[in-house]
């Protein structure tokens, strides 16, 4: 790329293309003759075009202005040539010039956009513009050409059509289009409301589906009447049958649909439900009231349960505090009581966290931050987090080459943690816990099987309910909030999966299963691949890239990123954290450096680590472009570094 190479400016002023290198004089002359002939032809084509065609220098100074440009903008060639194109742009769109100039160097073909321009008489016109670079024979950009078409009329028609569609769709009346044979062609939302059928169910079917049996010829008569009168029929009262078999009174108007020649090709009907539905309305009100009451009762129950569950640990905590404060105990006793207080305090914290979590999930406030993830890596991490327990070892039995899943990794880690800790908790006599995965159609099933207390059959449908706890002698000593499984169910369902509990009965162990939708095609294209386990920071980075017109894919761990790259993803830049769960950034980067695709793109490291110069140079050797401290403003620096490196290649 040679921005403004020698001579480019002087050439651009003439608006003529000329070779940058200097061939021998003879060849030069013949080339120029050929070029002149081409130019002449081009000039004729430009002048006769219906589109406004404007030639400009690299700096957007107008050099040519055809007749259509005069028609479109109202200015003559004399008035326009020599001025900067900016005088045609509304003030709030001046940055379009900058954008065009920036992209011009590398853009292949034309850049298209729909925008507004100002006519000489001051009115705004809607235009579609195709901008392309004018290059000399050496490929240097020496100017810009803009082909512009007036789309004001099209815009207006579009708007009218959209408005009409919106009116039709928002009507409470059933508005149905049909052919003269009575085959339904359009079905609005009002029709869904009145008849109960969806558009998908009805388009293509005969309208006679809605007509009561005792009126077999009604549709034919209505259409014949409309054709005979060549106009809209008057309101008339009839009856129709709904999807659920209800018979309703409707008031009907039928109008002809004409093609552009005026020939009647179909009919549209507007039907209003006039059934006396006082009884219905009353019933509806009562049922609404009932459901409001049910919700408030459920809330009351929740509050009462929560307060009970909170009071017990609080009683231990406060009770022992008061005893320790008012009496003297031996060191040993004191340690014992403090131990109880610590446990109960933690239990209280767990309980509060669980209650708040479930509340957020129920209120829909918890938004999932979805990213592709390698399920096996997630399970490994959950197993590590669960810690060692020699009597209750966790075995993982993963089916090979599972597809990636689209999940909120933090939420799914919690689901796994809950299932694993339950499996251990309810295995008081020990026994292995087996985690297995397998693909079943579009879903991945994850099973957590233990050899513990098992579940009585009647408990199976209830274990995922809030505060439900199985009551049996052998479970009495096992503490729990009764919320873990309820939280799991909500999280899994929010991902589009399902939960299940299975057991052969008491003493037979339990198996808990959840499913997650598999990613069918792993993402292949993205401008920036972000590897960052901090969801909040990752989201901020993504938003900033997206605001600059770049696409991003984020993974919460290096394992998933490696999977994506292996499956053929070709990012144009990589931003990674160093401190990651599982495989660390340094290890990941070393492997990455060996990949020829990645070696060619900018790789940025954002880290909280205080790296020694030697560590930084090791990273640079591994192919890292820059290392930035993860602090306020780092994301902006990262984003602008990447933007600078990429933007010329990003085509809009």
């Amino acid at each position, binding site marked *: 790329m040679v921005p403004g190479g020698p001579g480019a400016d002087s050439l651009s002023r003439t608006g003529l293309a000329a070779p940058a290198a200097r061939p021998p004089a003879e060849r030069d002359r013949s080339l120029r003759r050929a070029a002149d002939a081409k130019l002449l032809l081009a000039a004729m084509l430009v002048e006769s075009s219906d589109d406004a065609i404007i030639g400009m220098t690299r700096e957007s100074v107008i050099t040519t202005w055809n007749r259509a440009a005069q028609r479109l903008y109202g200015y003559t060639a004399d008035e326009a040539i020599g001025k900067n194109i900016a005088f045609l742009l509304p003030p709030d769109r001046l940055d379009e010039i900058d954008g065009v100039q920036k992209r011009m160097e590398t853009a292949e073909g034309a850049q298209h956009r729909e925008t507004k321009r100002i006519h000489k008489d001051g009115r705004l016109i809607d235009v579609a513009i195709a901008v392309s670079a004018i290059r000399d024979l050496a490929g240097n950009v020496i100017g810009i050409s803009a082909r512009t078409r007036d789309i004001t009329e099209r815009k207006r028609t579009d708007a009218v059509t959209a408005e009409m569609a919106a009116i039709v769709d928002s009507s409470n009346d059933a508005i149905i289009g049909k052919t003269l044979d009575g085959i339904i062609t359009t079905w609005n939302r009002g029709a869904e409301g009145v008849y109960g059928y969806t558009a998908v169910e009805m388009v293509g079917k005969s309208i006679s589906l809605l007509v009561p049996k005792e009126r077999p010829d009604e549709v034919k008569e209505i259409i014949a009447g409309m054709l005979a009168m060549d106009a809209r029929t008057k309101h008339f009262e009839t009856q129709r049958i709904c999807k659920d078999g209800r018979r309703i009174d409707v008031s009907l108007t039928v109008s002809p649909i004409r093609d552009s020649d005026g020939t009647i090709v179909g009919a549209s009907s507007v039907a209003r439900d006039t059934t006396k539905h006082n009884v219905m309305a009353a019933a509806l009100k009562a049922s609404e009231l009932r459901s409001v009451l049910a919700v408030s009762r459920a809330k009351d129950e929740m509050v009462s349960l929560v*307060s009970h569950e909170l009071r017990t640990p609080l*009683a*231990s905590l*406060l*009770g022992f505090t*008061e005893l320790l404060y008012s009496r003297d105990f031996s060191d040993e006793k004191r340690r014992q009581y403090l131990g109880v207080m610590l446990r*109960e305090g933690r239990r209280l914290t767990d309980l509060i966290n669980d209650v708040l979590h479930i509340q957020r999930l129920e209120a829909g406030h918890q938004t999932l931050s979805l990213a592709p993830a390698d399920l096996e890596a997630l399970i490994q991490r959950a197993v590590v987090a669960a810690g060692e327990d020699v009597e209750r070892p966790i075995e993982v039995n993963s089916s090979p080459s599972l597809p990636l899943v689209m999940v909120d990794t933090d939420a799914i880690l919690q689901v796994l943690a809950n299932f694993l800790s339950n499996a251990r908790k309810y295995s008081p006599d020990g026994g292995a816990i087996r985690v297995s995965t397998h693909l079943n159609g579009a879903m991945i099933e994850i099973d957590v099987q233990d050899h513990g207390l098992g579940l009585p059959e009647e408990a199976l449908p209830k274990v995922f309910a809030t505060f439900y706890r199985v*009551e049996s002698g052998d479970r009495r000593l096992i503490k729990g909030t009764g919320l873990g499984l309820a939280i799991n169910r909500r999280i899994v369902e929010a991902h589009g999966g399902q939960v299940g509990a299975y057991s052969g009965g008491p003493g037979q162990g339990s198996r808990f299963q959840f499913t997650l939708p598999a990613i069918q095609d792993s993402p292949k294209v993205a401008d920036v691949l972000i590897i960052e386990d901090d969801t909040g920071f990752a989201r901020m980075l993504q938003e900033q890239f997206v605001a600059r017109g770049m696409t991003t894919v984020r993974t919460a761990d290096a394992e998933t990123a490696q999977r994506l790259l292996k499956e053929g993803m070709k990012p144009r830049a990589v931003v990674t954290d160093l401190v990651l769960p599982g495989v660390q950034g340094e290890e990941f980067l070393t492997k990455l450096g060996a990949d020829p695709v990645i070696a060619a793109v900018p790789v940025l490291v954002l880290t909280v680590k205080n790296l020694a110069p030697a560590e930084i140079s090791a990273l640079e050797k591994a192919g890292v472009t820059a290392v930035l401290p993860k602090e306020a403003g780092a994301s902006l620096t990262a984003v602008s570094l990447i933007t600078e490196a990429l933007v010329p290649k990003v085509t809009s």
Partner: protein
Amino acid sequence: MQSVLIADDEPSMRLLVHVTIESDDYTVSEAANGDEAWEMIKRDKPSLVILDIQMPGRTGLEILGSIRSDPSLKSTKVILLTAKALGAELEEGMTAAADFFLTKPFSPLDLLTRVEEALRL
């Protein structure tokens, strides 16, 4: 010698109550659920029962009802511990049938006073 039975399914609560009321003036025993508590009450006829309301097996309220309707347990004192998770009416009626009732969280020193009152120490 007088005797006190603590009936609560929460080990930490049993420990707290036990430590609180420990004394040379009476013996203290524990039951971890309602059924066990009722067996011990019938067998040992304790002077005082400290009863948690919410327990697996027989609830504290069931046991209180059984105590009050058993002539052989006429002199048995009852202190109810409640975490207020029952219908208010039911709870009021039953706590009226108890000698004392305390709501969790409660002050251990307060509990000790009630115990000493109940045993007329």
